[in-house]
């Protein structure tokens, strides 16, 4: 139990406990992260982040320039402008706002601009709905962003600060999004432990450091930024002769991000005493489990409590929480699920004409596992439908029957949990 032996630099007594909801926790983390520009637009259930942050600005508690833009598209565009200028930038949104941002999300990652976006996950229209599911997050899964899902308010705070560090790492230089479940986390109060401002400042290494690039016309490495001392052109037209070559390093940086997320998770642990699995995945009683449930976000808490209950009854069930949806932890999944017989993926979003996005990614991993567990997709929680412990129990009971049977027919592989039939 080496974990108990470690004395973090800031043990709990040196941290400050505050009672906040998920949105406030993120706003507070942003305030501590020495962010230069916040450009944001209100949308439920993200609005509290911008409200809270505006208060910090109005009270002179931060140097941040708060740009109250006229749309999410402009929010992300302003962040691109700010990040390209060498500033640390942040924005937050949900659902339709994220959909409006999508065009610029691809540009932010393509231009290799570090920044952080908090996505308070909410269902996409139509029908219009303000409550949580992951359909908005699924929308941005190929946008080239690092996507980290928090399970609770404490993790929302921790991950927001970590996200800046990961995003700005010299080997990464990619934008990162922090995802919390709308209302379940955004509007739910929790006591969380927070670091002193200077600890966050030191953790992030002060203000944003600018990456260096080399261009033919200067005889030295120059700032990858809009710098009047060494002018660069950012956002060029690249056609079939170079587009591909520009995209490949972007993809490879995402792989490097896997290592960096793990490192930052460890570093955070040494600083605060908190860590989330290996940073990419957070397994619970997976090792000897016959049945493994895979979930993201706040639902993991509900599943974990039911898993505990079943374990007490001797049922070999486990939970694998995916924390990093992008980069997707294929390697960890293969390793962790090597002994499992049945894997149920919980998808809080749909892919009409397809399985859920999380299922597809897990299936892609498991194709390379020797054990080849039976795989099933549970779509649940759409439009904010609550996931009760009873529903999880019902799911596990069904999975036990499937396991006994030893197979799942193709037409039964996509299941809806908690919908009136």
């Amino acid at each position, binding site marked *: 139990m080496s974990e108990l032996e470690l004395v973090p630099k800031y043990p709990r007594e040196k941290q400050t406990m505050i009672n906040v909801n998920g949105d406030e926790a993120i706003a507070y983390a942003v305030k501590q992260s020495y962010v230069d520009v916040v450009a944001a637009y209100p949308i439920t259930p993200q609005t509290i982040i911008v409200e809270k942050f505006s208060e910090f600005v109005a009270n002179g508690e931060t140097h941040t320039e708060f740009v109250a833009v006229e749309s999410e598209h402009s929010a992300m*565009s302003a962040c691109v402008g700010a990040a390209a200028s060498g500033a640390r930038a942040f924005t937050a949104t949900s659902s339709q706002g994220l959909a409006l941002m999508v065009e610029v999300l691809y540009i932010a990652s393509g231009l290799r601009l570090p920044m952080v976006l908090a996505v308070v996950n909410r269902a996409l229209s139509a029908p219009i709905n303000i409550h949580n599911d992951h359909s908005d997050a699924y929308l941005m899964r190929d946008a080239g962003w690092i996507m980290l899902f928090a399970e609770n308010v404490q993790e929302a705070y921790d991950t927001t600060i970590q996200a800046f560090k990961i995003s700005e790492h010299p080997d990464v230089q990619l934008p990162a999004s922090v995802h919390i479940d709308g209302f379940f986390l955004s509007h739910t109060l929790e006591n969380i432990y927070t670091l002193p401002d200077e600890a966050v400042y030191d953790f992030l290494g002060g203000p944003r450091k600018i990456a260096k690039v080399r261009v*033919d016309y200067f005889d030295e490495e120059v700032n990858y930024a809009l710098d*009047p*001392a060494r002018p660069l*052109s950012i*956002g060029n037209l690249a056609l079939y002769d*170079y587009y591909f070559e520009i995209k490949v390093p972007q993809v490879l940086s995402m792989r490097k991000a896997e290592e960096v997320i793990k490192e930052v998770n460890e570093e955070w642990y040494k600083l605060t005493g908190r860590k989330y699995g290996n940073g990419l995945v957070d397994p619970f009683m997976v090792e000897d489990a016959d049945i493994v449930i895979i979930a993201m976000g706040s639902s993991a808490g509900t599943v974990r409590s039911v898993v505990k209950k079943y374990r007490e009854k001797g049922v070999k069930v486990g939970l694998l929480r995916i924390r990093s949806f992008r980069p997707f932890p294929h390697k960890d999944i293969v390793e962790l699920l090597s002994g499992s017989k049945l894997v149920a993926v919980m998808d809080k979003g749909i892919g009409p004409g397809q399985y859920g996005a999380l299922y597809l990614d897990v299936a892609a991993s498991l194709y390379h596992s020797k054990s080849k567990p039976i795989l099933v997709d549970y779509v649940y929680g759409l439009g904010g439908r609550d996931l009760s412990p009873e529903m999880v129990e019902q799911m596990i009971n069904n999975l036990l029957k499937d396991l006994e049977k030893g197979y799942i027919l193709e037409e039964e592989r996509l299941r809806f949990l908690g919908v009136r039939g």
Partner: protein
Amino acid sequence: MVVKTLPEIQVKKGEPPYKIWIFEPGEKKELPLIFNLRQLAEQRRPALLPGHRMCAGCAAPIVVKLASFAFRGPTIVVTATGCLEVSTTIYPYTSWALPWIHNAFENAAATASGIEAAIKAMKKTGRLKYENVDVVVFAGDGGTYDIGFQALSGMAERGHDVLYILYDNEAYMNTGIQRSGGTPKYAWTTTSPVGRVIPGKSENKKPIADIMVAHRIPYVATATPAHWMDLVKKVRKGIEVNGPAFIHALSSCDRGWRHEESISVEVLRRAVDTCYFPLWEWSPETGYLLTDRSLVIARNPSLKQPIEKFLEVQGRFRHLLRPENKELVKQLQEYVDATWNDLLKRASNAPR
């Protein structure tokens, strides 16, 4: 020597003709406005390098070139997607001699807002290496009148210290001459073709500069590169004011307007001479003021040319010169007269 790879052209007097604009950190010098052209040619280099792939005869690079003679120091340029953007930055080349960014089509103003906010934040924390860094946007009519209008209006309302220069070639030229909110009535474009029933675009040009005046930002002006001194002065004013400024520069496109490449500047002169495109500036303190040639015409109305002078050199209006379309030209003339008279009423320096 920091900059490599520029062609080495020796000149007897002044700087070599092509230069990257470098402002070393802490440098404090305001570039003066120069109106003596030989002196200008010796002392100042445009922000746009040659080798760009704009069409021969395009006026947009002239707008950029002239505007850059008015820049006062460290400047960041933002460009919306469009001809100017794609033709000046075809990878791996760039024609921009100063820091330049392109984000997307509709968000140049929002991108500039973010840059300006970043400059402020870095200044506040002592990390800005200069006293000032100016932000200038170049965007076409599509990116301004239409798809980019929301971002522009938002930037104006929020008061960002950005100069937004619209180079208006009156259609989506980059995609192949489609009508925009800036296309004038009865102009031929590929999406407002001259058919048997419909004679080109059915609607009038959106009064974009007046709309920006309605935002009551510190400075709004119209300009053309043909009236270069007027344009240079206005750009400097737009940069100097504290807050958003908007300059509507008419910019001919020989491909889209269907005119000879060589008359790109002349056609803009005709636009002003016919009062199709009057030159004016506006600020909350002064209200509307006529400038340059338009002020001359206001004082001496006999100099005002008939609209045909503008139409006759452009293929996009060729159908209007047919006898059966006389009525349409009359309509256009009436529209031009009405907007001109309206401007004369508003301009405090117009003779009463």
